């Protein structure tokens, strides 16, 4: 992984093919009121080691797109590969960790056993499970909370536990669906900073769904602006910010310039119509 990062070219693109390659993808849901076009003509490439945000108003299909990558939805038209194989194969190889809007911890398992859940399903031996639980809880600063049950933790801590659970699978790709959407601003800022540090440390590829402009600009190396009805990609913005950032960067003209372009993109996509 370190070698791949070192070999990254000037655009920050890693060696090898793209982690995610989507071409001409559309998805139509059949509902009782007739077909609804959730995604239309999506083309997207995500290179290794990138932090890509999907931003757009609700109903623009950003979550649906993430679910297609995760093989939780099947596209109607078009092609998609994850790590060079179909999403289903990638899922079966446990190529990604998925973090949901809600922590989705099992209430009857304590934190350590929640993190152990995917490891049990993978059939890992006990020693290896224990090693991964310890190291990943440490990574999200939850050491000492192993025996606590989810209800004993704050919302932010629960979401961190769910990140540790996703990391424990040791995937190269993290799919995050508005993971901090339900948290307050202060906790959210804090977790954003921690997430960036984690990303730098682990060198993973991240696809991050959000509807917050500052969050997208602060975290991403690439911002994909989407527009609704039907869901399509309106603009793809390469971040000019350095990979290492702290929260103060949000005051810089550079940051505001990117944020402005994202806002323009959202407005042009008629996102503010209703």
């Amino acid at each position, binding site marked *: 992984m370190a070698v791949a990062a070192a070999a990254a070219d000037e655009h920050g693109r890693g060696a090898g093919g793209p982690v995610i390659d989507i071409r001409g993808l559309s998805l139509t849901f059949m509902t009782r009121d007739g077909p609804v076009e959730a995604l239309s003509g999506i083309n997207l490439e995500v290179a290794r080691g990138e932090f890509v945000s999907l931003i757009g108003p609700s109903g623009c299909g950003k979550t649906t797109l993430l679910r297609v990558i995760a093989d939780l939805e099947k596209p109607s038209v078009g092609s998609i590969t994850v790590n060079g194989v179909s999403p289903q194969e990638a899922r079966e190889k*446990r190529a990604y960790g998925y973090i949901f809007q809600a922590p989705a911890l099992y*209430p009857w398992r304590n934190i350590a056993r929640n993190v152990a859940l995917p490891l049990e399903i993978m059939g890992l031996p006990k020693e290896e499970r224990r090693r991964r639980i310890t190291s990943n809880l440490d990574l999200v600063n939850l050491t000492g909370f192993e025996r606590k*049950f989810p209800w004993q933790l704050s919302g932010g801590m629960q979401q961190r536990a769910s990140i540790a659970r996703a990391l424990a699978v040791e995937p190269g790709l993290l799919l995050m669906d508005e993971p901090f959407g339900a948290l307050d601003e202060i906790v959210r800022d804090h977790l954003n900073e921690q997430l960036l540090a984690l990303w730098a440390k682990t060198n993973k590829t991240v696809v991050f769904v959000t509807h917050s402009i500052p969050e997208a600009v602060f975290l991403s190396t690439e911002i994909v602006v989407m527009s609704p009805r039907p869901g399509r990609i309106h603009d793809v913005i390469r971040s000019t910010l350095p990979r290492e950032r702290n929260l103060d960067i949000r005051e810089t003209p550079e940051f505001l310039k990117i944020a402005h372009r994202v806002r323009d993109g959202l407005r042009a996509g008629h996102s503010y119509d209703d």
Partner: protein
Amino acid sequence: MTVATSAYSDARRPGIVVRFLASKFVAVSVVVLVILAIWYVGAVFLNANAQRLADQRDGVTPTWIEFVEATWSQSKPRLPAPHQVAEEIYRTTVLTKPTSANSLIYNSWVTLSSTLLGFAIGTALGIGLATLVVHVRSLDRSLMPWIVSSQTIPILAIAPMIIVVLAAIGLTGLLPKALISTYLSFFPVTVGMVKGLRSPEPIHLDLLRTYSASRGQVFLKLRWPASLPFLFVSMKVAIAAALVGAIVGELPTGAVAGLGARLLGGSYYGLTQQMWAALVAASVMAGILIGIVGLAERLVVRGMGAPR
């Protein structure tokens, strides 16, 4: 400061008399006393006719206090007074050997054993059926209507047939009776577990899909633990139903032992004390059984880390 605090807490904290009057013990006792009072009054009215006839026959004219006392001490009353039922229970438990056919303990054990066996089979059957219904789509549509309609048949009508059919294939004794308990107890477990096994949220199911978990793993890691609260609720209903099933199974089948047989025998010979004693034994047993299920539930829930 200390003085002020203690004065404050004294003012806040109700006195011992007030706390005692507000306690659960008092609340329950009051209800019991009211029921006993109604029972005694009822016994006077229900037994009054027979008492008047007996007094006429004997040519005595009692005072009303003597009359009331007499209605509470008839040998074959229409409604025995509570102390008569208590005497009967004392006689058939403490004064009778537990191995005797007249012992209430022995007869309760006969009913209890078939209740427990029927409940165990019924719970296993209910869990099995619910698992099938949840996992096989066609069974959901084909099996569920039959499961529901099975409970519309009066158990009193079908019980003798079950006994006769099973006797014809050589099954007698405990099992046929237990199967009537099964018939009543599998239903709440099936319905509760179908709901319980379907209770996991979509997000929890999606999570396991991202791990490409097998159906067996989804069952063991998610559906089963999520369904446990539903299982215990249905088991409480099921064990009471199993007890009813065992007693009903003893009624039309000429059983010689069990609480049902005591009820039947009591009604043949007008031994109302015996019937009431059997009824009290049955309700005490139901209370204990439901209590045991509740205790098991609390232990399991605590093990599953629920907030206390």
